[in-house]
Structure formats: structure tokens, C-alpha cells
């Protein structure tokens, strides 16, 4: 990695991220009814956003595999890595969400439409990995798993955006809501957006690192095949 990139990352990990965590835990005021427990908002919302962003990234690379003839191998590991990071963020979303549900609704799991939608996203990731590993010996593995992600992508808007709006939900309004307004006071809003930004940059860094590892593995494999 180039030196300035490394310095930037160290600055980010050791100064900016802890600062945002401090903002979330100490500076931002607690919510009116939930009290101190509401601070989980600054961790739950970013990981939920990233689980969807990862899914979109995996879907984007899958579509590019199907429509473009170039860089297939690169696209393959990028879509796989996006899905890989996606499932981790989805699990984190489920865990933080159920802790929040226990505090505010009294039980860890309620089959609320929004809880259901994130579990289905997790199931899609699990199915993708099952299909990907089952296709180990198939020369078309990349394309077939890309088509699966494409089909799964079509169903996602129904779960994430449509069904929670049709069926009654206890979940608080999301950032992207019908009124297009964020129902938070200024300090909470600032902390939430700072948290989303740092988590997204962190995700970008991890994703980039995974892609570099995959690229090196690929080169190593090519070298071994040549010998």
C-alpha cells in the first residue's frame, strides 16, 4: 500500500473513528423514551446501510460480469468479497437490531416486517454462498452465481422498501422515509451521519483490502499454473 494511503488509514482508524464513537457514546443526547439505550442507533443504522450497500455492490459486479467481457476474474472476486462483507454486516445488523428490540419492544425477536426483511437478506447471502460452493467444478460458476444474485436483487426492493411500508411495523421511521425527513435533533443527526460516513469508509477500506488479497491469490495461482 502507498505510504500516504496508510497514513490516511491510520489517522482514520485511530483518530476519526474513535472520535465518532465518543460522539455517539458521550456527546449525543439520549433519546426521549429509550434513554441511554438509544445510542445503539449510531451502530445499528450504519451496519444496516452497509449490508444493503454490500448487496448493491455484489449485484453491480454481477451485472458487469454478465454484460462485459473484460476483467471477469476481477469482477468475480469483487462480487464474492462484496457478498462476504455483506453477510458479516447483515449478521451485525440482526444482532444490534435484536438488542434494540429487546430494550424497546421487550423481546429479541418479533417478526416485525423490517426484522424479517433483514433476515431474508441474510438468507439470500447464505443461498448465494451455497450455490457458489456447489458450482465449484463448473466453468460457468461466475456467470451462474451472478445470475442468482441478479434475481435475488430484483426481490430485495420488495423486502427492504415495499413490504415494511405495506404491513404495520413497530420499527421507527428509517432515514429514507415517506416524509423525506430525519426525525432526530441536530446533535443526534450529526452523530448519526458521522457514524454512517466512518463505517462506510471503513467498509471501503476492508473491501479494498480483501480485493487486493484475492488479486494476489489469483496471481499466485497463475504463476503456479505456469510452472
Amino acid at each position, binding site marked *: 500500500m502507498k505510504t500516504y494511503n496508510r497514513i490516511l488509514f491510520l489517522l482514520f482508524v485511530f483518530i476519526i473513528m474513535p472520535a465518532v464513537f465518543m460522539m455517539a457514546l458521550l456527546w449525543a443526547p439520549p433519546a426521549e423514551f429509550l434513554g441511554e439505550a438509544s445510542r445503539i442507533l449510531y451502530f445499528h443504522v450504519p451496519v444496516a446501510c452497509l449490508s444493503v450497500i454490500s448487496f448493491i455492490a455484489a449485484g453491480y459486479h454481477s451485472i458487469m460480469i*454478465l454484460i462485459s467481457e473484460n476483467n471477469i476474474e476481477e469482477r468475480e472476486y469483487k462480487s464474492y468479497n462484496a457478498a462476504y462483507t455483506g453477510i458479516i454486516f447483515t449478521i451485525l445488523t440482526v444482532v444490534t437490531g435484536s438488542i434494540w428490540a429487546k430494550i424497546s419492544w421487550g423481546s429479541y425477536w418479533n417478526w416485525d416486517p423490517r426484522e424479517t426483511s433483514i433476515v*431474508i437478506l441474510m*438468507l*439470500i447471502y*447464505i*443461498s448465494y454462498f*451455497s*450455490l457458489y460452493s*456447489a*458450482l465449484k467444478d*463448473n*466453468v*460457468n460458476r461466475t*456467470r*451462474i452465481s*451472478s*445470475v*442468482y444474485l*441478479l*434475481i*435475488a436483487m*430484483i*426481490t430485495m426492493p*420488495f*423486502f427492504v422498501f415495499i*413490504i415494511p411500508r405495506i404491513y404495520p411495523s413497530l420499527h421507527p421511521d428509517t432515514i429514507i422515509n415517506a416524509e423525506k425527513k430525519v426525525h432526530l435533533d441536530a446533535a443526534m443527526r450529526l452523530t448519526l451521519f458521522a457514524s454512517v460516513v466512518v463505517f462506510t469508509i471503513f467498509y471501503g477500506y476492508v473491501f479494498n483490502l480483501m480485493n487486493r488479497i484475492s488479486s494476489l491469490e489469483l496471481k499466485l495461482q497463475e504463476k503456479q499454473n505456469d510452472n
Partner: protein
Amino acid sequence: MNSRILKNIKKDFLIEFRNRSAVNISFAFAGITTLSVSLVAGGTPFPPVVHAIIFWIILFFSAMSGLAHIFIREEEEKNSLFLSLYYTPEEIYISKLIFNVVLFLSISVIVTFLYLFFLQVLPSYKFLFFLTVVSGSIAIASVTTILGAMVSKAGSGSSLFTVISFPVLLPVLWTAISLTSVSIDGSGVQEYRNIIFLLAFSGVIVSVSYLSFKFIWTEF
């Protein structure tokens, strides 16, 4: 193109009905599951939503037992290469889709009659119930056709088919269960609009599958 698709459909029907084992197993599975449920229930009066859930679970697993077969057979009998030489991937997809829709609608009719008869359910909105079964079955057949092709290429059989189908089919099951429940208890006639959701979902899946089937079927 139409005559070639018809020729392929005719071939599939001929093979399936000459060697009836696969089709028989699908129908027998659907029948036995429905009968087992009614036997175990033993006349217990279920609320409409429980009826709807059991009914669609039976239909879902009936689809899982039979709808991937049309592609798996081609792979097992090493016919896929010959098919690819003669037909375009789009023609293969359309013919297999029509076969699966017809097969699953037949399975659904059997399950519906057995279920209504043995569990003594009489839907309040019969037309809504009928539309739900038809549009839900078309949606299930549309999704499972493309996923069946993927599974046949993976060579992993029915467990993988169920795993990859479940998340994609959930919007269909979710909507179909709520529609069936409403049609049984007669609580909301405005639910008719959800039929459009099921049909639109099938339309979207079929369009994407039609465009992307060549990536699954053709070896690059």
C-alpha cells in the same frame, strides 16, 4: 421460433408421460403431504391464516420436489449439449417455463381440491382464492424454472434447490398466504390488487430469466 418451442414442449411432455415416474412422484408427493396434514389435523378447526400457511407450505415443497426435474433430467441424460446445438437458449427457456407452469398448475389443482375436501375449508371469496392459487402457482413456477436450471448445472439435487429458492420465493409466499387467508375468512375484498403484485413479480422474473438464461445454459 414458435414451432420450435412447441416441438421442444411436445418432446418434454412425451418423455415425461412415457416415463411417468418423475411426474407421478411429484403428484404423489403433493397428494401424500396434503393427506398427511389433514390426517394429523383430524378435523381440528384451524383459523384461516393457519390454513393459508399450511396450504402454501404444501405447494412450496411440492414445487421443490418436482420443478427442477425438467433440467436435471437433461443433464443426467447428457442431452443438454444436443439441445444447445439445435435450440437457442431462449427457446429452451420458454419451453421449459411453459412445461413447468403447466405441471405446477396441475399439481396446484390437485392439492387445492384435496386440501379443500379433506380439511373442509370453504373460501368466502371463491374467485379471489382461485386467482391467488393460479397467480401464486405461476409465480412459483417462474422462479423455480430459472433456479432449477442453476441447480442442474451444480449437480447438487433438491436440497440446494430448496435453499436457493426459499429467499427468492418469500415475497410470493408472503403475499399468497395473506391473500388466501383473506379469501377464506372474507375479511377484505380490496386485497384483489395484491394479485397484480404476484403477476408483476412473475413478469419481472420471467423477463430477467429470459435475458440471462444463456449465461446459465451456454458454457463459455
